[in-house]
């Protein structure tokens, strides 16, 4: 088990969110979409220019930009 930034996850990799270190509007937007510590995610893919990222949650698909993903720490299997 190791923790990495969401930005560095690759396609189809799965993991569990550990922390989300951002406040204000961005923090709130991330959380209200259901991205909170403990949430299991899988990377669906990236846009043609490698940014934004699309994530799969249990029941929905969420997109966010790389620099927004920088605030999210994920525990992944090695």
């Amino acid at each position: 088990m190791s923790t990495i930034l969401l930005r560095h996850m690759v396609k189809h990799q799965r993991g569990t969110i550990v922390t989300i270190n951002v406040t204000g509007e961005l923090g709130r937007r991330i959380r209200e979409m259901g991205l909170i510590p403990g949430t299991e995610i899988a990377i669906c893919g990236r846009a043609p220019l490698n940014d934004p990222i699309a994530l799969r949650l249990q029941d929905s698909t969420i997109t966010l930009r790389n620099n927004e993903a920088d605030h999210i720490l994920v525990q992944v299997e090695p």
Partner: protein
Amino acid sequence: MQLKMALAGNPNAGKTTLFNQLTGARQHVGNYPGITVDHKEGRLSHGGETIIVTDLPGTYSMTAYSAEELVARDYLVNNRPQVVINIVDASNLERNLYLTCQLLELGVPLVVALNMVDVAESRGIEINSAALSRHLQVPVVPIVARSGLGTEALLDAAIAVARENRPWTPLTISYGDDLDAALAEMLAIISDRRFLADTYPPRYTAIKYLENDQQLVERGEKTDAEAARRLQMLVDKSTDHTRRTLDVYPEAIIADQRYGYIKSLLRQGVISRKYDADRLYTSDRIDKVLTNRLVGPLIMLAILFALYQFTFSWSEVPVSWLENGFSWLGDKVEEILPEGILRSLVISGVIDGVGGVLGFVPLIMFMFFGIAVLEDSGYLARVAFMMDRVFRIFGLHGSSVMPFIVSGGIAGGCAVPGVMATRTLRSPKERMATLLTVPFMNCGAKLPVLALLIGAFFSEDRAQYMFFFTMLAWLVAMLAAKLLRSTVLRGAPTPFVMELPPYRLPTVRGLLIHTWERTYQYIKKAGTVILGISILLWAMMTFPHLPDAEQAEFAAKRQAILAEAGAEIVALLDQQGDDLPVEAAAVRERLAAIDNDQAEAALRHSLAGTIGTAMEPVSRLAGFDWRTDIALLGGFAAKEVIVSTLGTAYSMGEVDVEESQSLSERLKADDNWNRVVAVAAMIFIMFYSPCFVTLVCIAKEASWKWAAFSMGFNTIFAFALAVAVYQLGMFFGLG
């Protein structure tokens, strides 16, 4: 008595579908004052009650970050509807209940409409609505908004709740020991001073303070500064504490606890799943192709091109009907009314004005229909996803692409539907920057002007020049957006965090309602203003009249020609048709030449002419003479007017926009024109003030202040470019 009912829910939960299902055609769409968030209201009767339904904007939460969220919250606390229907997406229950939680904490009388149970079922998700209702302690009614299944039961439940008319009873969720302790202290102050008690329940106020909700904090400061100060101190203290011990802000703890509450509730026999989470749904399979990194962009280009074709080619037929209708009307008026001011006013002011407004209607309808298909199917979100990286460079948003394309990103669009298409953008700054730069695109009305000048001066390689000017429009629009976003619209980019909704087949009814609503708004809002401005511009180009002496001079010239020709030929002149004897045709031509000279003189003498002539010393910097100035003034009305006004100014008579070869020859021969002037003029025409229909739309979508800004900024910007081109070009002797 009338009951007030509000619909609240996440974006894409099916609110609009339910609203349409409930109210049918009895609805009314407007805007909330000052912002472009739709305010929809409808009426229905059920079980002997008349109910006024308000469709609140879709939101994920109830904080004060976006206009939509503020509108939803303010509506609830200020209008106090007797019942709120919270529509939740059963196939994405956990996330949807996050908003439900906040509605319950606010204490509004709630009924949960568990929508999309059909989708949930197909995904193997089973929801025990009785159990959910027991845990939430509000009625839960499963429905399928799309087919209307369950809506009767929903209304029954809603009316029962509304009739109870009990006071608001806020739900209490525990936020962990630390925050609960802080909340208790804050509650003491709030209850003691009845702080904001008229609007919010005490605990809700306290939570919002911990969440650092800007709107509520500001309001608190205004109503009771002392209490606000004490609350803020408590907030700072507990923020400090949670930061030190847990390294998080209270707002994060609050969100976690809310989700914790929802999760534990769902685990108690509310939800059961047949399949494991890894199952790929149809939607994911479609995405494998449509957002594929290689094929995705190609398909997107094809789809956008198709939308463009659909909007502009298919609408041609109704547009030409309208045009024919109005020109028929013009002809009729010409027959009925005697020549003079009144006729000129009715034809050039009123009919052209109304025609100008209505002429856009088919375009707008087709565009909104196309966009509604993309939006309702879920594809628009994918376009934003794929394009975001590019547009972000210029301070825009992935969703900006649609307005740009519609406005003429593929040459020949129209900025009016383009400006209106910015409605799909939910980020205020990015939306404003898009709205202000889409008029730079080469719309269909600029094309004849460009074609005229390119035809006159660069006839060898038309296609290349057209392509060059299309690319130039993109480049300049993007750079201008960047400029705006680093100056007047400065600010951090709005987060891109958004949902890619599952693909869904749009319903015809939904599409039609969507299209009609927006088209109607255009007619209603833009119509009156545009008619007024049209008359104003007409007056500018008509008054003051030529002095009598000069008119008499032209009349005398005509008389002289007629006298010279002799009665025999004059009698022939009244005949219709082209098969006149040579002499008569020559006389007719000479008369027409006099008419054209008079029209030129009259135009020069009018207010517009006076302004144009007065501007000449300045416009000379870019190589424009007074004739061009007047034509450019006319371009404020509509860009295609430039060609016809140039025609009048060069005493060519009425020049048909589609067939301007004669004018093109005339310009080529004129001393004031050369290749450099032509390029400077084209650049100016591409980028100066949007036509006034677009300006009115900007005013309605943003504000009159922004419309004025757009007019001023674009004109100065375009003039600077034109001067630079002209001066450099002449310096290097390219003329």
